[in-house]
């Protein structure tokens, strides 16, 4: 096997001839000559000039040439040997020569269709290839050899630009680490080559004629005017569209064919979650039936699938009687026509009363049981269970087929197949990384739509965030962030990184002391921001223990303001309102009936701080419900929908053991010295169960505030008062003596910082109010409050 380029290989000449001749200009020129010679010849013969025969004779030359170009030159088949030149794609044959170096290869890549596809889909830019050029081997031999191996592994017809590009990358020293930097792995290179081959094959297949039965196909089948008014003909719409689905889809289609081609109940219920590809299966089935070349039984060939539009049917009827009359008319037409398969999408709409739905089970069940009309029903598993519970006769009359969501590999294949259609609609190009990210983030954030529909939805929304028409992984992340209000990107801007690195400093601008808790929270956020957090858990779960007024709730609020886009992004539940077992229902209530339930609030605001205050007061059943949230970041609401807490920080606060903490600190002990024993004592005194405490990332003990700490607290309170006065351009300062008086008055080791806020309100704020009203404080002035004024007030 030769791994060098042989310019004398006949395929090289063939490719050059193709390049020179197989273009519209040459074909049109030849065609004009052909017509001119023919017309000229016939005209001369008409005028009795025998030279006309010569012209007609010579007109065969352009005819032969056109036929040769279109049927021989247009394709350059692979050679019979295994020599490198016999395996190269036609466009590469034009661009290679014996002196081609690896550097030249890099320049050649974007000039080939497959090479350009490979670079675009993997977002590998020309500067990237220029950057790696110095590390390439000296000769092309090893690149060609690797290309040969990739061709075999990907079962490609030829060695094309995409394969050469992958080969160039694989010939780099430490190529796996280079790919890792691009968040790719070697398998991804092969996937993109397969993607190109698949699309190339689809384009080739689309040029083949499709036989759909001809003009007399429906002569033996009846007219269906009423059905056509209320239904969409899927067979006409999808007769030329070949859809790629998981291998399981073909099995399901075969099951449907078996059901419909044999005797018995002529119905199929496709039961699966929304987005799992149920409609695609029906579309593929429709395409199969309409294809004359497909191997379906004769009694199913050219049968057409009509999807009944429930809303238009319901809106056309003024009452139940009229609706039943219309339905009977439609069913009669279907029966008489003999070539219709009725499809009921969202079939539950026909079996329940409600807006946009109507219960006509009494009409449909006999039809289903009789089996004279072929019906396909599409419904989700929950609705199927509901219908089964309500109407067992209906459930028993259905041939149920379960449609499972596609897995990662299948979803990516489906997205690769669907991408050109989406690209045409949205006028963008999807990168391979965008497809992978759509699957990953769709799985993580979209819980009510299954794969592959879910990933497709993500790709559709990501098209609005394309970078100069290219939808990248970042576009997908932005789409998810904008749609779901979460942070999925690794901190990549200077501002984000700076914020995360200086989080402690930012929090301490609003918080005094409690260094341990602040540091634990900051570390959790840094892990999330750097993308190293466990994706299947919340960002962080913390239990804050300590006396009242030491900053437990304040820390949660500060965190919300500093990192979670404002103090409003806090979901706060007072757990002393959840003291009975029945209160579990209030936690998971559907948002429509209780917008303040925990699940409803997190659904609306998935990127937030969840603050569960006074957790020790909650009923044990409530705590048990919360175990799954702390562990997996998931809680199911009453409608069994998964609600993700994976983008929240969960903070539980408790005063349990507050006196012990205070006593130990007053006795001069350090928190770390008694923390473990203290937690053990909480378990032994049955205040918390060990399995509950074990679920937290960290249990932080808050120490009581000292008089020195209160100086800082007072400064923060005065700063807050000044912020309130800012619109009036008035500010307040306190003399050191005044501060000392306030601290002496406001210090209460049992109550922490809370009394201080009240004292400031009674003294400082009253003095300021009086000064403003009396005109003593004018805009632009600074009020200095002294010890005496405090004492008087």
């Amino acid at each position: 096997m030769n791994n060098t380029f042989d310019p004398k290989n006949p395929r090289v000449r063939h490719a050059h001839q193709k390049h020179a001749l197989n273009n519209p200009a040459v074909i049109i020129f030849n065609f004009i000559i052909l017509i001119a010679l023919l017309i000229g010849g016939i005209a001369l013969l008409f005028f009795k000039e025998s030279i006309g025969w010569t012209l007609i004779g010579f007109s065969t030359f352009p005819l032969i040439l056109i036929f040769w170009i279109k049927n021989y030159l247009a394709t350059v088949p692979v050679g019979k040997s295994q020599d490198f030149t016999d395996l190269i794609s036609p466009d590469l044959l034009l661009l290679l020569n014996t002196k081609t170096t690896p550097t030249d290869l890099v320049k050649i890549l974007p000039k080939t269709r497959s090479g350009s596809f490979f670079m675009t889909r993997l977002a590998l830019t020309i500067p990237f290839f220029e950057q790696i050029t110095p590390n390439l081997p000296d000769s092309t031999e090893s690149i060609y050899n690797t290309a040969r191996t990739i061709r075999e592994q990907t079962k490609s017809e030829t060695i094309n630009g995409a394969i050469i590009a992958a080969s160039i990358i694989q010939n780099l020293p430490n190529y796996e680490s280079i790919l890792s930097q691009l968040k790719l792995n070697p398998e991804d290179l092969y996937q993109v080559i397969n993607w190109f081959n698949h699309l190339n094959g689809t384009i080739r297949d689309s040029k083949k004629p499709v036989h759909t039965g001809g003009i007399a196909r429906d002569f033996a089948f009846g007219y269906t005017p009423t059905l056509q008014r209320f239904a969409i003909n899927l067979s006409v719409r999808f007769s030329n569209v070949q859809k790629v689905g998981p291998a399981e889809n073909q099995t399901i289609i075969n099951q449907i064919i078996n059901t419909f081609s044999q005797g018995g109940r002529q119905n199929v219920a496709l039961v699966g979650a929304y987005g799992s590809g149920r409609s695609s299966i029906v579309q593929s089935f429709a395409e199969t039936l309409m294809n004359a070349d497909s191997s379906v039984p004769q009694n199913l060939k050219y049968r057409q699938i009509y999807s009944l539009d429930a809303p238009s049917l319901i809106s056309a009827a003024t009452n139940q009687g009229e609706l039943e009359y219309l339905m009977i008319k439609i069913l009669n037409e279907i029966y008489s026509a003999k070539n219709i398969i009725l499809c009921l999408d969202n079939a539950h709409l026909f079996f329940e009363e409600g807006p946009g739905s109507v219960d006509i089970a009494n009409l449909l069940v006999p039809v289903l049981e009789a089996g004279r009309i072929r019906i396909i029903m599409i419904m989700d598993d929950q609705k199927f269970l509901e219908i089964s519970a309500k109407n067992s006769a209906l459930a028993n009359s259905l041939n149920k087929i379960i449609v499972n969501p596609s897995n990662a590999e299948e979803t990516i294949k489906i997205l690769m197949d669907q991408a050109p259609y989406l690209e045409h609609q949205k006028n963008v190009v999807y990168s391979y990384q965008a497809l992978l990210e759509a699957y990953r983030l769709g799985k993580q954030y979209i819980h009510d739509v299954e794969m592959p529909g879910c990933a497709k939805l993500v790709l559709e929304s990501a098209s609005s965030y394309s970078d100069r028409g290219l939808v990248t992984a970042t576009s997908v992340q932005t789409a998810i962030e904008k749609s779901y209000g979460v942070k999925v990107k690794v901190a990549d801007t200077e501002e984000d990184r700076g914020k995360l690195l200086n989080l402690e400093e930012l929090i301490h601008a609003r918080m005094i002391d409690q260094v341990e808790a602040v540091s634990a929270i900051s570390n959790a956020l840094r892990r999330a921001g750097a993308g190293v957090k466990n994706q299947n858990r919340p960002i962080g779960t913390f239990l804050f223990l300590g006396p009242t007024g030491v900053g437990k709730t304040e820390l949660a609020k500060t965190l919300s303001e500093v990192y979670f886009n404002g103090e409003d992004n806090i979901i706060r539940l007072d757990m002393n309102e959840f003291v009975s077992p029945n209160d579990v229902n209030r936690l998971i209530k559907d948002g429509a009936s209780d917008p303040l339930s925990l699940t409803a609030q997190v659904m609306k605001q998935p990127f937030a701080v969840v603050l569960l205050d006074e957790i020790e007061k909650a009923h044990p059943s409530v705590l048990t419900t919360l175990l799954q949230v702390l562990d997996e970041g998931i809680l199911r609401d009453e409608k069994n929908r998964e609600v993700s807490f994976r983008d929240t920080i969960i903070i539980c606060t408790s005063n349990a053991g507050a006196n012990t903490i205070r006593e130990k600190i007053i006795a001069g002990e350090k928190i770390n010295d008694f923390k473990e024993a203290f937690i053990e004592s909480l378990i032994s005194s049955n205040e918390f169960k060990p399995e509950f405490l074990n679920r937290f990332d960290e249990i932080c003990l808050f120490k009581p505030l000292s008089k020195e700490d209160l100086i800082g607290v007072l400064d923060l309170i005065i700063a807050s008062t000044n912020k309130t006065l800012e619109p009036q351009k008035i500010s307040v300062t306190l003399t050191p003596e005044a501060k000392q008086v306030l601290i002496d008055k406001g210090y209460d080791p049992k109550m922490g910082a809370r009394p201080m806020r009240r004292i400031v309100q009674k003294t400082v704020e009253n003095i300021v109010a009086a000064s403003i009203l009396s005109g003593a404080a004018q805009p632009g002035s600074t009020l200095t409050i002294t010890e005496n004024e405090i004492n008087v007030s």
Partner: protein
Amino acid sequence: MAIAEMFLWWYAHGWSVFIKKLRGHLTNIIDFFSMSSLVRTLFQPFRQISAETASADSSLELKFHMFVDRLVSRIVGFFSRLILLITGTIIIVLGGIISLILIILWPIIPFAPIIGIILTIVGVTL
């Protein structure tokens, strides 16, 4: 060189490509006229008009009435299909004959200029 290659291909692979293309065209014509469907459903009621069958307990008059209706529908169906069947068959046969002639003429086509020159020299006119 290219011209020689072109003529070599014409007599080798080109001929079979041409035959394949003609076969494809004939298949398309057969599909267009739904020949197999027409033959299979030749006696079926046209568009299922009046195709209902009377039930066992229907009156004799109704049964007869329906039988006549169906018979008419079948006759209409038979004739419309037959017309299309005959038209299709004629076109397919014509297409087949033309295809056969073209296949036979295929090796002569490159010699057409020589034949043209000979006819000119001989002085053949219309």
